[in-house]
């Protein structure tokens, strides 16, 4: 059995299930022929087929073939700190950008993202975030002239 493909197949099945549930209240027919729900339902059905095929294939497969397929490329540990900080950066940005403006939002979120790498020092992270604030300011605000507020209502005096 191939563990990764087994998990992959189950993931597909789960996604198809949730999707079909969300699409189940859509009408299958309309005055114009087929309704808005038919195509999504067909896709979910197709994905169930693929999911089942993959799960069955993974159960039958010889586990030693996994290494053969990708030699020297073991799964490796999940970079938990990296995932958390990188994924948190856009969330921080989204929280800050409306009340405080683009500059603080960018500064704080890039600072957090930079720390995703273990070898980055605090000073290094601070440097990168300051540089990015200035660079994005120059590019988006001055060169491209996009209507972005650098400092939000909470910081405007």
């Amino acid at each position, binding site marked *: 059995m191939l563990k990764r493909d087994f998990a992959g197949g189950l993931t597909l099945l789960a996604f198809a299930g949730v999707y079909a549930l969300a699409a189940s209240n859509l009408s299958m027919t309309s005055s114009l*022929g087929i309704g808005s729900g038919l195509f999504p339902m067909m*896709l979910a059905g197709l994905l169930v087929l693929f999911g089942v095929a993959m799960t069955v294939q993974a159960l039958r497969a010889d586990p030693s073939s996994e290494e053969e397929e990708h030699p020297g490329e073991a799964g490796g540990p999940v970079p938990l700190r990296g995932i958390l900080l990188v*994924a948190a950066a*856009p969330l921080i940005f989204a929280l800050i950008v409306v009340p405080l403006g683009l500059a603080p939002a960018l500064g704080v*979120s890039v600072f957090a993202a930079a720390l995703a*790498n*273990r070898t980055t020092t605090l000073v290094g992270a601070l440097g990168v975030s300051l540089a990015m604030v200035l660079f*994005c300011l120059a590019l988006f605000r001055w060169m491209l002239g996009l209507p972005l507020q650098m400092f939000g209502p909470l910081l405007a005096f």
Partner: protein
Amino acid sequence: MEILAGLGIGFNAVFSFENLLYCLVGAILGTAIGVLPGIGATATIALLLPITFALDPLPALIMLAGIYYGSQYGGSTTAILVRIPGEGSSVVTAIDGYKMAQKGRAGPALATAALGSLFAGTVATFLIALFALPLSHLALRFGAAEYFALIVLGLVASSTLAHGPVLKSLAMIIVGIMLSMVGTDLYTGSHRLTFGYMALADGISFVVISVGLFGIGEIIRNLENTTQQDLTTTRVKGLFPTLRDFRLMTPSILRGTAIGSFLGLLPGAGATLSSFASYSAEKRFAKGPVKVGDGAIEGVAGPESANNAAAQTSFIPMLTLGLPANPVMALMIGALIIQGIRPGPTVISSNPELFWGLVASMWIGNIFLVILNLPLIGLWVRLLLIPYRYLFPAIIAFCMVGVYAVSLSTVEVVLVSFFGLMGYALMRLRFEPAPLLMGFVLGPLLEEQFRRALIISRGDPLIFIERPISAGLLGCSLLALVLMALPGLRKKRNVVFQEPESI
């Protein structure tokens, strides 16, 4: 004659200060990201999509195209000098190119790569001009059923020709189409799959998906390997190839150009596969004194011509049929849609200066690239000294500001984070994100044609097999799938993709 007139329009359109500037910017950016191994053309173009929003359609397209073929040049530079292929398409160049560099012939290897690419690019540009018109005329006669069948064939072909297991990439295409259904239904106006969120009523933005999957997702994956690579750069001297080199590389360049031009047209194949195919061809046909694999100039000339030719001919299906041959072309379609242009057979007649301008810009861009690359090689290699730990926060900053600048919606920024995590999870499970993007771009078109065909036939699904062209195209898709299920062919396909990886 029509072609000459068209090229006239194109060169007229390109020779403005603004367009030439963006062509140059694209070429420079493309070379830079081609040199850097952590970030590829797909991710860069995804990141720059928001910026193109502020530009006119032609400069936007010129710049993005420049990034794409520019990255092919940059990728080969580092492959030859330090044996780090910056792009998948220059993996085979690293074999002979690096060995030539070790023998002190880095200069001729680099020059060969650049000249081969220039020649291939020129030929491919003419092919685009030549084939685009007849193809678009043909496509204009397609009805809804035929168009549906054509998209199905394109998607199936892209999964059988691309890297990785067919079952997985087909599943990813389906997931992509499913995600594209979220939002307001065009026919009935009702909201679908929005879970009651008004923010999802307009659907998931293309920028958000591509930035999330290719930008953030890639970064998390790159954080996995913390090894720093050390560089031992060879000094480049004596750039120009000798007369004997020219005699050896000419047939290889011709072969590579032919192989690349053809494979670039096929969905999913593109630059990487064509460089592999050209390398196997050189192994068989090259007659030089040095064996291919031991530092032969043919092993550089062939694949480098092939990948550049393919990078350019892959524009043909995108521009004439609105079908992307690879994820980069899917992003181009996204860029056009942001500009309010729906790519398809009508673009050539409705926006002639856009189409011909792009074709003309490719040729100019190739010349820019040769000028940029040969004298400045030392500078480009220096780029490799930038540590990734400073590069990735910058990429993230770009992702966030870019997405926010286009939509001014914080929900979209949050979704970037979500799709980044999803992209990483998919990679862990060894699902490629590229087919998902193809499905996402083509999904709405696929459904529209499907429903239109059923309206025309009053709900009779037999319309897809009663019309000969549609039946033929669907038959080809089925055949492709059946062939892939045969064990013998599957093994052969794996060999094609495995061989160059095991260097």
